[in-house]
Protein backbone atom coordinates (compact mmCIF):
# COMPACT_ATOMS: atom_id res chain seq x y z
CA UNK A 1 0.00 0.00 0.00
CA UNK A 2 1.34 3.42 -0.93
CA UNK A 3 1.28 6.51 1.20
CA UNK A 4 3.44 8.64 3.38
CA UNK A 5 4.03 8.91 7.07
CA UNK A 6 6.20 11.09 9.26
CA UNK A 7 7.43 10.24 12.73
CA UNK A 8 7.67 12.67 15.58
CA UNK A 9 11.16 13.81 16.60
CA UNK A 10 13.09 11.03 18.28
CA UNK A 11 10.83 8.25 17.02
CA UNK A 12 11.62 5.49 14.56
CA UNK A 13 9.99 5.55 11.14
CA UNK A 14 9.63 1.77 11.34
CA UNK A 15 7.66 1.96 14.58
CA UNK A 16 4.37 0.08 14.67
CA UNK A 17 2.93 2.39 17.33
CA UNK A 18 0.61 4.95 15.69
CA UNK A 19 1.34 7.37 18.51
CA UNK A 20 4.89 7.78 17.22
CA UNK A 21 3.74 9.40 14.00
CA UNK A 22 2.94 13.03 13.41
CA UNK A 23 0.66 11.77 10.69
CA UNK A 24 0.24 8.90 8.29
CA UNK A 25 -1.79 8.74 5.14
CA UNK A 26 -2.40 5.08 5.90
CA UNK A 27 -4.46 5.95 8.93
CA UNK A 28 -8.08 6.79 8.82
CA UNK A 29 -8.50 10.20 7.25
CA UNK A 30 -7.34 13.22 9.10
CA UNK A 31 -9.81 15.79 10.20
CA UNK A 32 -8.81 18.43 7.72
CA UNK A 33 -10.62 21.71 8.21
CA UNK A 34 -12.04 22.53 4.82
CA UNK A 35 -13.92 25.54 6.01
CA UNK A 36 -13.04 27.47 9.11
CA UNK A 37 -13.18 31.02 10.23
CA UNK A 38 -13.08 33.29 13.18
CA UNK A 39 -15.92 35.71 13.40
CA UNK A 40 -15.93 38.73 15.57
CA UNK A 41 -16.80 42.34 15.34
CA UNK A 42 -19.13 42.87 12.46
CA UNK A 43 -19.00 39.18 11.62
CA UNK A 44 -19.79 38.11 15.13
CA UNK A 45 -22.59 38.82 17.46
CA UNK A 46 -22.62 41.32 20.24
CA UNK A 47 -24.90 41.82 23.14
CA UNK A 48 -24.57 45.42 24.04
CA UNK A 49 -26.82 45.06 27.04
CA UNK A 50 -27.67 42.30 29.43
CA UNK A 51 -28.43 39.03 27.69
CA UNK A 52 -31.96 37.81 28.09
CA UNK A 53 -32.88 36.41 31.44
CA UNK A 54 -34.25 32.89 31.75
CA UNK A 55 -37.91 32.96 31.01
CA UNK A 56 -40.68 30.49 30.79
CA UNK A 57 -40.13 27.86 28.19
CA UNK A 58 -37.07 27.36 26.04
CA UNK A 59 -36.03 29.96 23.55
CA UNK A 60 -33.59 29.66 20.69
CA UNK A 61 -32.05 32.76 19.20
CA UNK A 62 -30.12 32.06 15.98
CA UNK A 63 -26.90 34.04 16.02
CA UNK A 64 -25.10 32.94 12.92
CA UNK A 65 -25.72 30.72 9.91
CA UNK A 66 -22.82 29.37 7.86
CA UNK A 67 -23.78 27.61 4.62
CA UNK A 68 -21.59 24.86 3.19
CA UNK A 69 -21.67 22.75 0.05
CA UNK A 70 -20.10 19.51 1.23
CA UNK A 71 -23.16 17.49 0.37
CA UNK A 72 -22.96 15.57 3.64
CA UNK A 73 -22.94 16.21 7.38
CA UNK A 74 -19.32 16.98 8.28
CA UNK A 75 -17.56 16.69 11.61
CA UNK A 76 -17.32 20.09 13.21
CA UNK A 77 -16.11 22.14 16.11
CA UNK A 78 -17.13 25.53 17.37
CA UNK A 79 -15.49 27.65 20.00
CA UNK A 80 -16.90 30.82 21.45
CA UNK A 81 -15.14 33.67 23.12
CA UNK A 82 -17.17 35.70 25.51
CA UNK A 83 -15.95 39.06 26.64
CA UNK A 84 -18.14 40.43 29.34
CA UNK A 85 -18.42 41.74 32.81
CA UNK A 86 -20.39 39.89 35.40
CA UNK A 87 -20.30 37.90 38.56
CA UNK A 88 -20.98 34.37 39.59
CA UNK A 89 -20.79 32.35 42.80
CA UNK A 90 -17.07 31.77 42.42
CA UNK A 91 -15.89 35.22 41.58
CA UNK A 92 -16.00 38.18 39.32
CA UNK A 93 -15.18 38.04 35.66
CA UNK A 94 -13.35 41.23 34.79
CA UNK A 95 -13.96 43.15 31.64
CA UNK A 96 -11.54 42.21 28.91
CA UNK A 97 -10.90 38.66 29.98
CA UNK A 98 -11.90 36.06 27.53
CA UNK A 99 -13.93 33.10 28.54
CA UNK A 100 -13.24 30.47 25.96
CA UNK A 101 -16.27 28.43 25.83
CA UNK A 102 -14.66 25.26 26.01
CA UNK A 103 -16.18 22.27 25.03
CA UNK A 104 -16.88 22.24 21.62
CA UNK A 105 -19.11 24.43 22.10
CA UNK A 106 -21.09 24.98 24.87
CA UNK A 107 -20.71 27.87 26.98
CA UNK A 108 -23.06 27.33 29.75
CA UNK A 109 -24.05 29.63 32.45
CA UNK A 110 -26.85 27.75 33.87
CA UNK A 111 -29.91 27.74 31.77
CA UNK A 112 -28.29 29.85 29.10
CA UNK A 113 -26.21 28.23 26.44
CA UNK A 114 -24.40 28.81 23.23
CA UNK A 115 -25.06 25.84 21.00
CA UNK A 116 -24.81 24.88 17.40
CA UNK A 117 -25.99 22.35 14.90
CA UNK A 118 -24.78 21.15 11.53
CA UNK A 119 -26.63 19.44 8.74
CA UNK A 120 -25.73 18.75 5.12
CA UNK A 121 -26.24 22.36 4.15
CA UNK A 122 -25.34 24.68 6.99
CA UNK A 123 -24.00 25.28 10.46
CA UNK A 124 -26.14 27.31 12.83
CA UNK A 125 -24.91 28.85 16.06
CA UNK A 126 -27.61 29.81 18.48
CA UNK A 127 -28.20 31.22 21.91
CA UNK A 128 -30.44 29.00 23.97
CA UNK A 129 -32.34 30.07 27.03
CA UNK A 130 -33.96 27.40 29.13
CA UNK A 131 -36.64 27.97 31.66
CA UNK A 132 -36.28 27.80 35.40
CA UNK A 133 -33.50 28.04 37.89
CA UNK A 134 -31.14 30.77 38.90
CA UNK A 135 -28.66 32.06 36.41
CA UNK A 136 -25.13 30.83 37.05
CA UNK A 137 -23.74 34.16 35.97
CA UNK A 138 -25.43 37.27 37.20
CA UNK A 139 -25.22 40.93 36.42
CA UNK A 140 -23.79 40.22 33.02
CA UNK A 141 -23.29 43.33 30.95
CA UNK A 142 -21.80 44.19 27.62
CA UNK A 143 -21.44 40.62 26.56
CA UNK A 144 -19.60 40.28 23.30
CA UNK A 145 -19.49 36.93 21.59
CA UNK A 146 -17.19 35.81 18.84
CA UNK A 147 -16.83 32.39 17.35
CA UNK A 148 -14.43 30.08 15.66
CA UNK A 149 -15.94 27.25 13.73
CA UNK A 150 -14.47 24.31 11.85
CA UNK A 151 -16.15 22.21 9.23
CA UNK A 152 -13.92 19.22 8.62
CA UNK A 153 -13.60 17.03 5.58
CA UNK A 154 -14.57 14.10 7.75
CA UNK A 155 -18.01 12.79 6.89
CA UNK A 156 -20.33 11.81 9.71
CA UNK A 157 -23.25 10.91 7.50
Amino acid sequence: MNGIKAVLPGKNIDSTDPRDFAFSSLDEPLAVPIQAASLSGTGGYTFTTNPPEPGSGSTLIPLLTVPHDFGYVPASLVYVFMDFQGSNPTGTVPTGSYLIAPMPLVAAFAYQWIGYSVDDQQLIIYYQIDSGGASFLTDVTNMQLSFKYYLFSTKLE
Partner: protein
Amino acid sequence: MPAGFKAAQLGADVNTAPDYELVVSSEWPVLKILTIVPIAIPVVGASDMLVYEHNLGYYPAFLAYADGGGQNTPGQVAITNLINQNFYVTQSGLFYSSFSSPMPKGFVIIFEYDVVNTVFNAPTQLSFGTPSSATQNTNGLEISKSNFDIGSTNPDNIAFTTANRPLQVQSSGQINQTGTTAIPVPHNLGYPPVHFLYQLLNGNQLSLAEYKATADNETIYFSGVQSILGVCYYIILKDAFASQALS
Protein backbone atom coordinates in the same frame (compact mmCIF):
# COMPACT_ATOMS: atom_id res chain seq x y z
CA MET B 1 18.03 19.51 12.52
CA PRO B 2 15.90 16.38 12.78
CA ALA B 3 14.51 14.79 9.67
CA GLY B 4 10.96 15.65 8.75
CA PHE B 5 9.06 18.02 6.58
CA LYS B 6 7.00 21.15 6.78
CA ALA B 7 4.85 23.22 4.46
CA ALA B 8 4.44 26.97 4.63
CA GLN B 9 1.52 29.15 3.79
CA LEU B 10 1.35 30.79 0.42
CA GLY B 11 3.82 33.64 0.32
CA ALA B 12 5.94 32.42 3.22
CA ASP B 13 9.44 31.02 2.93
CA VAL B 14 9.33 27.53 4.37
CA ASN B 15 12.99 27.80 5.37
CA THR B 16 12.48 30.81 7.57
CA ALA B 17 8.76 30.84 8.34
CA PRO B 18 7.85 31.01 12.01
CA ASP B 19 5.34 28.51 13.31
CA TYR B 20 2.32 30.64 12.65
CA GLU B 21 3.14 30.78 8.94
CA LEU B 22 3.42 27.02 8.62
CA VAL B 23 0.53 24.90 7.49
CA VAL B 24 1.97 21.65 8.73
CA SER B 25 5.11 20.31 10.36
CA SER B 26 6.02 16.74 11.10
CA GLU B 27 7.21 17.95 14.50
CA TRP B 28 3.62 18.56 15.51
CA PRO B 29 1.30 15.58 15.91
CA VAL B 30 -2.08 15.81 14.26
CA LEU B 31 -5.25 14.34 15.68
CA LYS B 32 -5.48 11.17 13.63
CA ILE B 33 -8.84 9.50 13.49
CA LEU B 34 -8.81 5.89 14.58
CA THR B 35 -12.45 5.33 13.80
CA ILE B 36 -15.89 6.89 13.80
CA VAL B 37 -18.32 4.90 15.91
CA PRO B 38 -22.00 5.14 14.99
CA ILE B 39 -24.21 5.42 18.06
CA ALA B 40 -27.71 4.00 18.45
CA ILE B 41 -28.93 3.89 22.04
CA PRO B 42 -32.73 4.02 22.04
CA VAL B 43 -32.95 2.77 25.63
CA VAL B 44 -30.48 3.29 28.45
CA GLY B 45 -29.67 0.27 30.57
CA ALA B 46 -29.19 0.02 34.31
CA SER B 47 -25.41 -0.06 34.01
CA ASP B 48 -22.91 1.74 31.85
CA MET B 49 -22.96 0.41 28.32
CA LEU B 50 -19.88 -0.65 26.38
CA VAL B 51 -20.36 0.98 23.00
CA TYR B 52 -17.08 0.14 21.32
CA GLU B 53 -13.97 -1.85 22.18
CA HIS B 54 -10.91 -0.02 20.98
CA ASN B 55 -8.37 -2.14 22.92
CA LEU B 56 -5.69 0.52 22.49
CA GLY B 57 -4.28 0.08 25.97
CA TYR B 58 -4.50 3.83 26.61
CA TYR B 59 -7.12 6.54 26.98
CA PRO B 60 -7.76 8.00 23.52
CA ALA B 61 -9.06 11.48 22.78
CA PHE B 62 -12.59 11.50 21.45
CA LEU B 63 -15.46 13.75 20.46
CA ALA B 64 -19.14 12.84 20.52
CA TYR B 65 -21.86 14.17 18.29
CA ALA B 66 -25.59 13.70 18.71
CA ASP B 67 -28.03 13.74 15.85
CA GLY B 68 -31.15 15.50 16.92
CA GLY B 69 -29.83 15.91 20.43
CA GLY B 70 -30.76 18.82 22.61
CA GLN B 71 -32.62 21.40 20.61
CA ASN B 72 -31.52 20.02 17.28
CA THR B 73 -33.89 18.38 14.92
CA PRO B 74 -33.07 15.01 13.35
CA GLY B 75 -30.53 15.46 10.61
CA GLN B 76 -28.73 18.16 12.52
CA VAL B 77 -25.61 17.08 14.34
CA ALA B 78 -23.82 18.86 17.12
CA ILE B 79 -21.44 18.48 19.94
CA THR B 80 -22.55 19.62 23.31
CA ASN B 81 -20.97 19.48 26.69
CA LEU B 82 -23.68 17.24 27.99
CA ILE B 83 -23.46 14.84 25.11
CA ASN B 84 -19.75 14.43 25.53
CA GLN B 85 -20.08 13.92 29.24
CA ASN B 86 -22.47 11.07 28.56
CA PHE B 87 -19.50 9.16 27.17
CA TYR B 88 -16.21 8.13 28.67
CA VAL B 89 -13.31 5.99 27.57
CA THR B 90 -11.22 3.51 29.46
CA GLN B 91 -8.01 1.94 28.23
CA SER B 92 -10.05 -0.66 26.39
CA GLY B 93 -13.40 0.75 25.44
CA LEU B 94 -15.92 3.54 24.89
CA PHE B 95 -18.82 3.59 27.32
CA TYR B 96 -22.19 5.32 27.57
CA SER B 97 -23.29 6.32 31.04
CA SER B 98 -26.37 4.67 32.48
CA PHE B 99 -27.38 8.03 33.93
CA SER B 100 -27.70 9.58 30.51
CA SER B 101 -30.71 10.00 28.30
CA PRO B 102 -31.14 7.73 25.31
CA MET B 103 -29.27 8.75 22.17
CA PRO B 104 -31.07 7.18 19.20
CA LYS B 105 -28.49 8.42 16.75
CA GLY B 106 -25.03 9.90 17.06
CA PHE B 107 -21.36 9.53 16.27
CA VAL B 108 -18.18 9.34 18.30
CA ILE B 109 -14.83 10.12 16.69
CA ILE B 110 -11.97 8.31 18.43
CA PHE B 111 -8.51 9.72 17.84
CA GLU B 112 -5.17 7.96 18.00
CA TYR B 113 -3.96 10.27 20.73
CA ASP B 114 -3.02 9.03 24.19
CA VAL B 115 -4.53 11.71 26.39
CA VAL B 116 -3.24 10.57 29.77
CA ASN B 117 0.31 9.53 28.96
CA THR B 118 1.31 12.02 26.32
CA VAL B 119 3.29 14.86 27.82
CA PHE B 120 4.27 16.83 24.78
CA ASN B 121 5.63 20.26 24.03
CA ALA B 122 6.24 21.25 20.45
CA PRO B 123 10.00 21.53 20.00
CA THR B 124 9.98 24.28 17.46
CA GLN B 125 11.19 27.72 18.43
CA LEU B 126 8.19 29.98 18.30
CA SER B 127 7.89 33.45 16.94
CA PHE B 128 4.94 35.51 17.98
CA GLY B 129 2.31 36.19 15.43
CA THR B 130 -1.18 35.29 14.41
CA PRO B 131 -1.88 32.62 11.82
CA SER B 132 -3.42 34.03 8.70
CA SER B 133 -5.01 32.36 5.75
CA ALA B 134 -3.53 28.94 5.11
CA THR B 135 -5.33 28.28 1.92
CA GLN B 136 -5.12 28.57 -1.78
CA ASN B 137 -1.61 27.29 -2.19
CA THR B 138 -1.23 26.41 -5.80
CA ASN B 139 1.62 24.06 -4.96
CA GLY B 140 1.64 21.54 -2.20
CA LEU B 141 0.95 18.01 -1.19
CA GLU B 142 -2.36 16.22 -1.28
CA ILE B 143 -3.01 12.57 -0.47
CA SER B 144 -6.26 10.81 -1.12
CA LYS B 145 -7.70 8.06 1.02
CA SER B 146 -6.99 4.53 -0.06
CA ASN B 147 -8.89 3.55 -3.20
CA PHE B 148 -10.03 7.09 -3.95
CA ASP B 149 -8.92 9.20 -6.89
CA ILE B 150 -6.58 12.05 -6.00
CA GLY B 151 -8.60 14.16 -8.39
CA SER B 152 -11.76 13.69 -6.37
CA THR B 153 -13.59 16.86 -5.51
CA ASN B 154 -15.22 15.24 -2.50
CA PRO B 155 -13.28 16.52 0.53
CA ASP B 156 -14.08 13.38 2.49
CA ASN B 157 -11.91 11.41 0.02
CA ILE B 158 -8.80 13.41 0.92
CA ALA B 159 -6.62 12.11 3.75
CA PHE B 160 -4.20 14.97 3.85
CA THR B 161 -3.59 18.26 2.16
CA THR B 162 -1.22 21.13 2.71
CA ALA B 163 -3.89 23.46 1.41
CA ASN B 164 -5.41 23.71 4.86
CA ARG B 165 -3.99 23.57 8.33
CA PRO B 166 -4.97 20.37 10.15
CA LEU B 167 -5.43 20.32 13.88
CA GLN B 168 -1.93 19.95 15.26
CA VAL B 169 -0.84 19.70 18.86
CA GLN B 170 1.22 22.39 20.52
CA SER B 171 1.34 20.74 23.91
CA SER B 172 -0.45 18.26 26.11
CA GLY B 173 -0.16 17.29 29.73
CA GLN B 174 -1.82 17.08 33.12
CA ILE B 175 -3.25 19.62 35.53
CA ASN B 176 -4.79 19.12 38.95
CA GLN B 177 -7.21 21.72 40.24
CA THR B 178 -7.73 21.21 43.97
CA GLY B 179 -9.20 24.61 44.81
CA THR B 180 -11.12 27.29 43.03
CA THR B 181 -8.01 28.97 41.65
CA ALA B 182 -7.70 28.56 37.90
CA ILE B 183 -4.75 26.45 36.79
CA PRO B 184 -2.31 28.23 34.44
CA VAL B 185 -0.77 26.37 31.53
CA PRO B 186 1.84 28.28 29.54
CA HIS B 187 1.58 27.93 25.79
CA ASN B 188 3.65 30.92 24.58
CA LEU B 189 2.03 30.88 21.18
CA GLY B 190 1.47 34.60 21.02
CA TYR B 191 -2.30 34.20 20.64
CA PRO B 192 -5.13 32.42 22.49
CA PRO B 193 -5.26 28.90 21.06
CA VAL B 194 -8.06 26.39 20.74
CA HIS B 195 -7.82 23.36 22.97
CA PHE B 196 -9.51 20.40 24.65
CA LEU B 197 -9.67 19.38 28.28
CA TYR B 198 -10.40 15.85 29.43
CA GLN B 199 -11.20 14.80 32.99
CA LEU B 200 -10.35 11.51 34.66
CA LEU B 201 -13.20 10.37 36.88
CA ASN B 202 -13.44 7.41 39.21
CA GLY B 203 -9.84 6.53 38.50
CA ASN B 204 -10.38 5.05 35.07
CA GLN B 205 -13.05 7.00 33.20
CA LEU B 206 -11.90 9.75 30.88
CA SER B 207 -14.46 12.18 29.55
CA LEU B 208 -14.48 15.70 28.24
CA ALA B 209 -14.45 18.09 31.15
CA GLU B 210 -17.01 20.72 31.90
CA TYR B 211 -14.67 23.66 32.19
CA LYS B 212 -14.02 27.22 31.33
CA ALA B 213 -10.80 28.77 30.21
CA THR B 214 -9.43 32.21 29.95
CA ALA B 215 -6.40 32.85 27.83
CA ASP B 216 -3.93 35.49 26.86
CA ASN B 217 -1.03 35.36 24.45
CA GLU B 218 1.14 33.23 26.72
CA THR B 219 -1.07 31.25 29.09
CA ILE B 220 -4.36 29.41 29.35
CA TYR B 221 -6.09 29.26 32.72
CA PHE B 222 -8.39 26.27 33.28
CA SER B 223 -11.05 26.02 35.94
CA GLY B 224 -14.28 24.16 36.57
CA VAL B 225 -17.63 25.64 35.72
CA GLN B 226 -19.65 24.47 38.68
CA SER B 227 -17.18 22.21 40.48
CA ILE B 228 -13.44 21.83 40.99
CA LEU B 229 -11.82 19.99 38.13
CA GLY B 230 -9.43 17.63 39.92
CA VAL B 231 -7.10 15.74 37.59
CA CYS B 232 -7.48 16.77 33.97
CA TYR B 233 -5.50 16.47 30.78
CA TYR B 234 -5.22 19.27 28.27
CA ILE B 235 -4.50 19.28 24.57
CA ILE B 236 -3.52 22.71 23.31
CA LEU B 237 -3.64 23.04 19.56
CA LYS B 238 -1.64 25.20 17.21
CA ASP B 239 -4.69 26.96 15.87
CA ALA B 240 -5.52 30.41 17.09
CA PHE B 241 -9.00 31.34 18.01
CA ALA B 242 -8.64 34.57 16.11
CA SER B 243 -7.07 33.32 12.90
CA GLN B 244 -8.38 34.49 9.61
CA ALA B 245 -10.71 32.54 7.41
CA LEU B 246 -9.28 29.40 5.89
CA SER B 247 -11.62 29.54 2.98
